[in-house]
């Protein structure tokens, strides 16, 4: 839109300045060709950047299905000469892939749902109720988004290790540590989800709630039966983001559940584990198994993304981070 306005102006200017030299048809062609050149430039930039993003994924997939003999053959580029399932099979075996995947998906989905329940409650509380101190408290939400969790990881770890100051309760290694954080709205990026819900609820018209109040519904019933059904875009956004971030997270899981067997953590030790299990010394072979493992880890999330891509992109726009 910006560009066309400028171009219209430029063409108009040309018409004013040199009306006799060029007739109208020539002018139109020159305007169109300038537009065409601009589009070509934009296309080159966009395709180039897209290539930079996609090429590592292509390279990983190519290496994952490539025979180790091809990997050291300098004449082979991307498309393998000898196709093999061997790397993928090894990665599946070392990571116990199907069980791990099921566990990781259940873990991520469970925590994502927990995030939605808690942060929507808190977000609604901040959006619709005027109470003393609500302003400073909401500022605290923003502060909890901005202050990195790494600042207080040591006390967090020690307090969960010796929960409630006693030596008997050790929450490290159980789901309770991360569970408690998520239940109380200070888990993995909870502050951001509270913010998203608050902005979204503020954008909804107040009249629908007032109607519910007049019909005799209490605040909680209004929230549950009127607001939540209307908040589908925000819920989907938070659900998807929480799911993906839990799926990818290694900081919280390795800190609070050191012996977890989740996909993102197993992936880090895949190469050494493979070498240990198969007594395999070749680093090239181990690397190819790592590529296969990365491919196996990407595929589920990529599949989800392909189907729900619209909600990721539009959700962020509509959920009210902007505005």
């Amino acid at each position, binding site marked *: 839109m910006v560009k066309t306005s400028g171009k219209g102006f*430029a063409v108009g200017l040309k018409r004013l300045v040199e009306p006799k030299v060029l007739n109208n048809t020539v002018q139109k062609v020159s305007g169109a060709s300038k537009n065409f050149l601009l589009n070509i430039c934009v296309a080159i930039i966009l395709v180039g950047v897209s290539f930079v993003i996609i090429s590592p994924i292509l390279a990983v997939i190519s290496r994952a299905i490539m025979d180790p003999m091809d990997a050291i053959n300098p004449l082979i580029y991307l498309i393998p000469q000898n196709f093999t399932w061997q790397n993928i099979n090894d990665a599946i075996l070392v990571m116990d892939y199907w069980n791990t995947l099921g566990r990781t998906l259940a873990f991520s989905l469970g925590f994502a749902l927990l995030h939605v329940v808690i942060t929507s409650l808190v977000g609604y509380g901040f959006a619709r109720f005027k109470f003393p101190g609500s302003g400073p408290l909401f500022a605290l939400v923003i502060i909890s988004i901005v202050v990195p969790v790494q600042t207080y990881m040591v006390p967090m770890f020690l307090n969960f290790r010796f929960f409630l100051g006693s030596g008997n309760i050790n929450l490290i290694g159980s789901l309770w540590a991360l569970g408690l954080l998520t239940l109380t709205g200070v888990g993995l990026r*909870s502050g951001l989800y509270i913010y998203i819900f608050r902005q979204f609820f503020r954008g909804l018209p107040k009249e629908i709630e007032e109607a519910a109040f007049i019909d005799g519904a209490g605040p*909680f019933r209004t929230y549950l039966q009127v607001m939540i059904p209307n908040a589908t875009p925000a819920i989907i956004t938070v659900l998807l983001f929480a799911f993906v971030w839990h799926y990818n997270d290694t900081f919280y899981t390795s800190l609070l559940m050191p012996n977890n067997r989740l996909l993102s953590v197993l992936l880090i030790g895949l190469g050494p584990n493979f070498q240990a299990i198969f007594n395999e010394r070749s680093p090239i072979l181990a690397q190819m198994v790592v590529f296969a493992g*990365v491919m196996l880890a990407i595929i589920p999330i990529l599949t989800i993304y392909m189907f729900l891509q619209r909600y990721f992109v539009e959700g962020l726009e509509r959920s009210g981070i902007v505005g």
Partner: protein
Amino acid sequence: MKTTATKKWMTLQRRETVWGFLFISPWLVGITVFFLFNLFEAIIFSFNTIIVDPVAGGFTMDFVGLSNFRFILLEHGSYNQQLVESLTGMLVNVPLIIFFSLLMAVLLNRKFMGRGLVRAIFFLPVIMATTAIQSTLELTMGMMMGGVSSVPTEVMQAQMGFNANSIAMLVTSFGVPIQVAQYIIAAVSALHEIIRASGVQILIFLAALQAIPPSMYEVCQIEGATSYETFWKVTIPMVSPLILTNVVYTIVDTFAQSQVVQTAHNQAFVMQQFGVSAAMSLVSSLLACVLLLFVGWIISKRVFYYN
């Protein structure tokens, strides 16, 4: 059933207060117990030596004053260097990420075929932002250069006669200061990192661009503004609040992935020096916060709020 007495006591204001606190009560517990208390303890820890006693349970603190800070800043092998590198890296990368994501958002805001697909691709790095996947994807960079050309770069340079420094020499011979040339070359060689780090920012800018009322551009067109003028007088002021948001997001994001954080993590969970690690985290977070406040203050003076 409520009596009249309770009804009078429950004014609308009071009822709102009670319900408001009820709704945010889970978060209120979390923010005090798991955030504010931990933050407070992190400060206490940094002045102490922590000795964990796994048998008896619990840990003991031994007040050592400033010696943790003295150790990390003056004696530790690499911490101060990493700190400076992280902060300068932030100062270099944050403007680049902001400019790049704004440019990409402007390009993506145009109507063209396959817009949805390109947007989906641009958002891919956010989906795959896990350490193991990222480090593996970085390994593949060399492979995409191609089969035969994946021979060492020195050989390739000799064959193709291409050297990044030749571009630097070319640029400087035009009279561009050497620092600027170095900055541009650093930016180009970090292109992959910048693209990877700007997924969310592009989306935020894109949403901001779409929120600009079209009538503003119509006015510009009628008044005869060039597209260059329109960009600086309409687009930039309208997205300026989101520039602030994006700068904050980028600094926090870059900090969480910096080497300093990793060092503090190792100090605590590999070397079991919890007090030293707390001091490390505290110093680096404090510096990042100062940077954040400083940049935020500068930008917020120039931000234009439409509503």
